[in-house]
């Protein structure tokens, strides 16, 4: 096996981590260095934050659906958030601004990113490439345990005087730079510190993923035999490595402006507000590709397997991932077309932004071509993955409007943008997460999920998701701005009340429907059908080991003979052909036990 695998396992042996001795509870479940356990830890914490983010959105939608009307149950909130009146508690604008800010922040940084990068990165990379664990297991443990205090700080900011951050998840200066503009002081600072700590968590993860993929692939696992999920996670890790330090720098500069008297972004002392935007979006745009690339990788795995057909254009899919990641560095100014930066830059950013539509289009066509003439098993992971493609198409197409600088003049900072981001982040990333959790659930927990509950969840989510977010395109085209506490203050927006109320009611149903997935998840842990090694008849290395795999993953060194998508191959008697199955015309080599399997 590779030198790195050998060294790593030797060190693990020296630390007492091998099959013969069962580690104590706290080393096995709390401070674990096993990538599979860390993956589950990220999953549980992130799903909790997903629920929190959803509840914050529900509160926001109450205000938008029933502007400045007393909210049932609102009395449980402190007076600083909901003003008590004789008729009931009415949401205050300062709380609304915090809800907007924290919904975005929590969903992006504490739900979607750790689910895609923390859960799937940790779960899949070592298993799919044939490694016993990550390159640096203790660093991996640190990565999770840095994310937890970051999350606690973010939640705690709701409880401090002045409330949680209220300048948007984008935290534009000078609004965010001084509490005198928002009434939020400590909350804004905690937001910055929390994200800085989370940045270190992400960086540790990125270093691990990159090192592991480069150094620890099993014999025969060449670069172009790596599954697309791992490819996507690898490229994503490179983006994380390069983008997070920029965010960290910007966060520290803003924290200094808030606390120690610097003026990076404060114009009254010759600072430049636009500098924040450039720094934030130079990080922020690669960030959104961090949020979609792993989802694309997951979709490719599920679609190819459930269609029993090779992924169409595997090499193009890899090149498209790399192209998206590369181009993602030169489009940041499209968030700043109307910002006051030189209009000439608007044109250059428009061209690069238009160009980045192309690799995403290529991937979409390849998914469609994979479905074409396939043998489509429409179980719940496949349904979620197909919905991902369908909704990502909409999100991608809506992006073309805002890429055009003159059209962006009208739709910038309106609900058209809100529609776009939710089609790519929820319709895209979250549906892919549902697909991935459902698909790899048996590998994680040794049982299959409840297929009936999942299908009902899928149907309700798909329908109500579209009823919530499609009309937001229309609201934006009618001129409704983002982050607006009471749009009825504008006469021209008053006709939009019925649509906003409709969206709010659909949000209530959408959020309630998520309980079905939660019930399926927890019911299946105890009552789900027990899973074999390979319940989906899949080709990947992760499906050659038990469900769940033992510590160290592979008892025998895997040897890879082909790519991961040889479904319905004439070389096989069945409709799949695992990567590690020796070819018919060559005798199987003697299996080599791994140290952890000996």
């Amino acid at each position, binding site marked *: 096996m590779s030198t790195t695998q050998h060294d790593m396992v030797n060190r693990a042996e020296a630390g007492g981590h091998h099959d013969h001795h069962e580690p104590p509870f706290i080393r096995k479940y709390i401070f674990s260095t096993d990538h599979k356990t860390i993956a589950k830890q990220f999953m549980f914490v992130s799903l909790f934050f997903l629920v929190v983010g959803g509840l914050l959105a529900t509160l926001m939608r109450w205000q938008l659906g029933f502007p400045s009307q007393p909210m049932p149950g609102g009395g449980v909130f402190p007076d600083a958030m909901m003003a008590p009146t004789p008729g009931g508690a009415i949401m205050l604008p300062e709380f609304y601004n915090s809800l907007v800010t924290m919904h975005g922040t929590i969903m992006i940084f504490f739900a979607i990113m750790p689910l895609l990068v923390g859960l799937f990165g940790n779960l899949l990379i070592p298993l799919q490439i044939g490694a016993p664990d990550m390159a640096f297991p203790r660093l991996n443990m640190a990565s999770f345990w840095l994310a937890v205090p970051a999350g606690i700080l973010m939640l705690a900011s709701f409880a401090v005087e002045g409330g949680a951050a209220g300048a948007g998840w984008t935290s534009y200066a000078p609004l965010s730079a001084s509490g005198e503009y928002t009434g939020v002081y400590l909350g804004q600072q905690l937001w910055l510190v929390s994200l800085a700590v989370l940045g270190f968590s992400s960086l540790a993860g990125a270093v691990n993923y990159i090192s592991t993929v480069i150094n620890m692939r099993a014999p025969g696992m060449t670069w172009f035999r790596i599954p697309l999920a791992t490819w996507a996670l690898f490229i994503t890790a490179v983006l994380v490595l390069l983008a997070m330090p920029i965010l960290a720098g910007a966060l520290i500069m803003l924290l200094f402006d808030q606390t120690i008297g610097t003026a990076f972004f404060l114009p009254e002392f010759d600072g430049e*507000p636009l500098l924040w935007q450039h720094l934030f979006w130079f990080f922020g745009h690669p960030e959104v590709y961090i949020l979609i690339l792993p989802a694309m990788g997951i979709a490719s795995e599920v679609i190819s397997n459930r269609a*029993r*057909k090779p992924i169409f254009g595997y090499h193009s899919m890899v090149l498209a991932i790399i192209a998206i990641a590369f181009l993602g560095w030169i489009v940041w100014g499209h968030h700043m077309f109307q910002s006051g930066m030189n209009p000439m830059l*608007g044109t250059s950013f428009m061209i690069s932004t238009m160009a980045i539509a192309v690799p995403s289009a290529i991937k979409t066509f390849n998914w469609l071509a994979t479905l074409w003439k396939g*043998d*489509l098993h429409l179980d719940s992971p496949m349904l979620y993955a197909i919905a991902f493609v369908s909704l990502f198409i909409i999100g991608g197409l809506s992006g073309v409007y805002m890429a055009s600088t*003159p059209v962006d003049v009208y739709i910038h900072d309106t609900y058209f943008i809100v529609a776009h981001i939710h089609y790519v982040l929820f319709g895209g990333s979250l549906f892919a997460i549902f697909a991935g959790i459902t698909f790899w659930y048996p590998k994680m927990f040794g049982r299959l999920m409840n297929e009936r509950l999942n299908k009902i969840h899928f149907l309700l989510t798909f329908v109500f998701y579209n009823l919530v977010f499609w009309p937001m395109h*229309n609201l934006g085209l009618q001129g409704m701005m983002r982050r607006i506490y009471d749009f009825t*203050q504008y006469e021209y927006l008053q006709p939009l009340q019925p649509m906003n109320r409709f969206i709010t009611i659909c949000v209530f149903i959408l959020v309630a429907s998520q309980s079905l997935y939660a019930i399926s998840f927890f019911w299946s842990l105890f009552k789900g059908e027990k899973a074999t090694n390979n319940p989906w008849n899949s080709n990947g290395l992760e499906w050659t080991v038990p469900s769940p795999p033992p510590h160290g993953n592979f008892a025998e060194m895997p040897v890879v003979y082909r790519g991961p998508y040889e479904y319905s191959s004439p070389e096989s008697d069945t409709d799949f052909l695992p990567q590690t199955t020796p070819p018919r015309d060559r005798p199987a080599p003697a299996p080599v036990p791994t140290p952890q399997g000996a």
Partner: protein
Amino acid sequence: MNWSWMLPESFSTFGGEVDAIYYVILWVTGIVFVITEGLLVYFVVRYRHKEGRKATFDHGSTRVEVAWTLAPLFIVIGLGVASKGVWDRMKRDVPDGALEMIVTAQQFEWHATYAGADGVLGTDDDFTLVNELHAPEDRPVLVYLRSNDVLHSFFLPEMRVKQDAVPGQEIRAWFEAVQPGDYTLGCAELCGTGHTTMNGTLTVHTQADYDTWVAGQVAQQQ
């Protein structure tokens, strides 16, 4: 509830050009939407698993990849080129003879400073109104946009104008209204707890009425 993808009517000279680009994009994305989603639905139904069904063992086609790389590339570059001219006219090329005014944004109101009867900013007959923009029809209006505190965004939806107001900078924005009437002035950048109240009106007068109005304002100031 308005499910239409038609834009509300615009009332400025470049509004028509902006809306035209939007409709081109609507057609292009609409056709792509129908084709791709249609194929998706068709494939899901046509190729769903049935007893005896076998998938085709097909890894792809380089020719097809090149085709569906180049086609989108030409389309989006075309959209970019079409957009560039309109953008330059909106943001860079202010026509001659524009009526100048200063708009200063602050938490949470718009202060509009007019040049007064002499038509020159910075003289004694300048006057300032709060949340009230006035302009003559058929004449370019050049706004010098400022902010006294945080970022705001000067949004005239019916004129298809949006420009962020940045403290520490003076940014030019212009438009030419084509029809008298009352229009919306809004703030399109989160600027604090009063962001939602930062609305005003733009009143477009005929040229004659505008002159009368200015004279009346100047007289009131004295």
